[in-house]
């Protein structure tokens, strides 16, 4: 069994907000002039991470099923003269890199996870096994356009971040991962986000052999 305490849980559920509106709403979370080329997911993550002062020895675990959907769509649309900027922005860990490059904040360990049904389980397990005293767990999606119509992108935008540590002081929640005999288990990112956003408890098998219990103070 692995237990950790949740600190500074932050969520953002902007529904169908445009990227221009997101950029304007969250401009204060970024150094001046740094948001012009940021994606909506980068902006949303920068927003929820804004008061979590990430340090070099923190580990960051990032979870997203689709990640940089809009950059991916626009990069594909740029063929036969592919855009170099959209190419580099379309890679899976780009949103976090946008945020930390804007802050010029190095970090030793950064684990960008993807997947779907067991994504939450594996991201939380990575966080729980990290050697760093504090682990920042974050994730989210941006809503797609033509890829969403093909069920190849998220229909909703959302983002979350929290810090995990062994320190109970000031914690707002508690997380426990237990080994089980269950051969199955799943928890997708939108459902985990809803639990964080609504401060709802969770107790279920989230992957083969792994049970998650999330409680709130």
């Amino acid at each position: 069994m692995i237990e950790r305490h949740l600190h500074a849980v932050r969520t953002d559920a902007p529904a169908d907000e445009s990227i221009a509106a997101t950029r304007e709403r969250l401009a204060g979370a970024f150094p001046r002039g740094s948001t012009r080329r940021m994606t909506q997911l980068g902006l949303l993550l920068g927003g929820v991470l804004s008061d979590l002062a990430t340090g070099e020895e923190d580990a960051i675990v990032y979870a997203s099923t689709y990640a940089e959907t809009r950059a991916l769509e626009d990069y594909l649309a740029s063929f036969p003269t592919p855009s170099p900027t959209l190419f580099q922005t379309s890679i899976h860990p780009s949103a976090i890199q946008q945020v930390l490059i804007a802050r010029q904040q190095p970090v030793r360990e950064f684990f960008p996870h993807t997947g779907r049904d067991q994504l939450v389980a594996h991201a939380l397990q990575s966080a729980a096994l990290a050697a760093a005293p504090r682990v920042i767990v974050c994730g989210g999606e941006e809503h797609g356009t033509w890829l969403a119509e093909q069920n190849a992108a998220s229909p909703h935008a959302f983002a979350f971040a929290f810090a995990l540590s062994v320190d109970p002081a000031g914690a707002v929640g508690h997380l426990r991962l237990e080994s089980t005999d269950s051969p199955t288990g799943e928890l997708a990112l939108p459902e985990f986000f809803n639990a964080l956003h609504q401060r709802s408890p969770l107790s279920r098998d989230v992957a083969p052999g792994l049970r998650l219990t999330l409680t709130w103070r």
Partner: protein
Amino acid sequence: MIRGAPAAVNAPLPSSISLAATDCLTAFGDARQTHRALLESRRALAFHPVLGGDGGDPVPLALAAGHAYDETVPPSWLEPLAGLAARLPDDPWGTARFPVFVTSSNFGVGSLHAFRRTGDARHLRYGTPFATVEVLRERFGWGPNVAVVSHACVSAHLGLLLATRSLERGLATRALVFSFDFVSPFVAGGFHALKILNAGLPAPYSAAGTTGSIGLGDGAAFAVLAPAAGGARPALRLTAQTLHNEMHHFTANRSDGAGFAACLAPVQTTLARRRFWIKGHGTGTLEAGRLEAATLARLFPSAPLVAWKGSLGHTLGSCGLVELAIVGEALRAGMVPGTVGTEPPFFSDAVAAEPFPSRDYDGVLLTSNAFGGAHAACFLSHD
């Protein structure tokens, strides 16, 4: 229950993790075939139009046998990949005690490009990371305990570290790290747009040219990790792993090379008493190659440095695992391939252009780098 403070970040591994099995797939074939080709200084890279059937500039690509560059339905790389998976040890992969860590930077993104190009919706079955991994899981008979990680060209190293931690905490009996990246117009078009995939062939660590060039290559590999049983001393042992992310610029490193040194700082003490050689990243770009070679020569002046992307191309998120499999074969065969495709003068005197015997060494440092100034390294010990 784990309640105490976590161990120091990036400390050398408290117990040896055995590299129980490994193999790879490259344009030359499996690890043994690839190793032999590298010893013979052969290049797999050949020139192809960057946009495949849509034409474009010729660029150096190393495509695996059976892989059509313009994506098909199902993807033509699926059969060669199944051939690699057929060589996995017979364990119940994807169940609770036998986790799989899939790593890739591309997954089936070539299928998204093909969908956009042709409108054929059948490509979409392979177009997202989870969909691609689900196809592999069904095809290879794995259970659902498959963690998926994607961090550009250090992806495979992250899989190795996560698998190691699962074993160290007793959460797994054996762990499989499986990585695959197949080149498509999507990724070649991107690197061509960045102007580093061009009409030149890569010459890793060479200071002779004025233009840096990379090649891209198909690559897939696996590594089976296991705890060292009952105090036994396995033949190949992962004894240190380390990461660092500069977060300085998307496509450039800090100009003083500090990111390369920061990654290796936690393992310097461990390596101080070892006689080892270095399998570097060595893509063929000038600035990163200069920084990498200079930093490694400064930190480890007696360690020969080799890189194989001048022959195989850059196998992207899978490069760390592909090159680990080749290292394993080099140690088995007793000969280390030199840096293929390069020419003096080099950025450092440590660059080895010719093959050399492995018997004089007791370890190998493997390094990889990625977008965002990401750095990763692991140390493989052997007797």
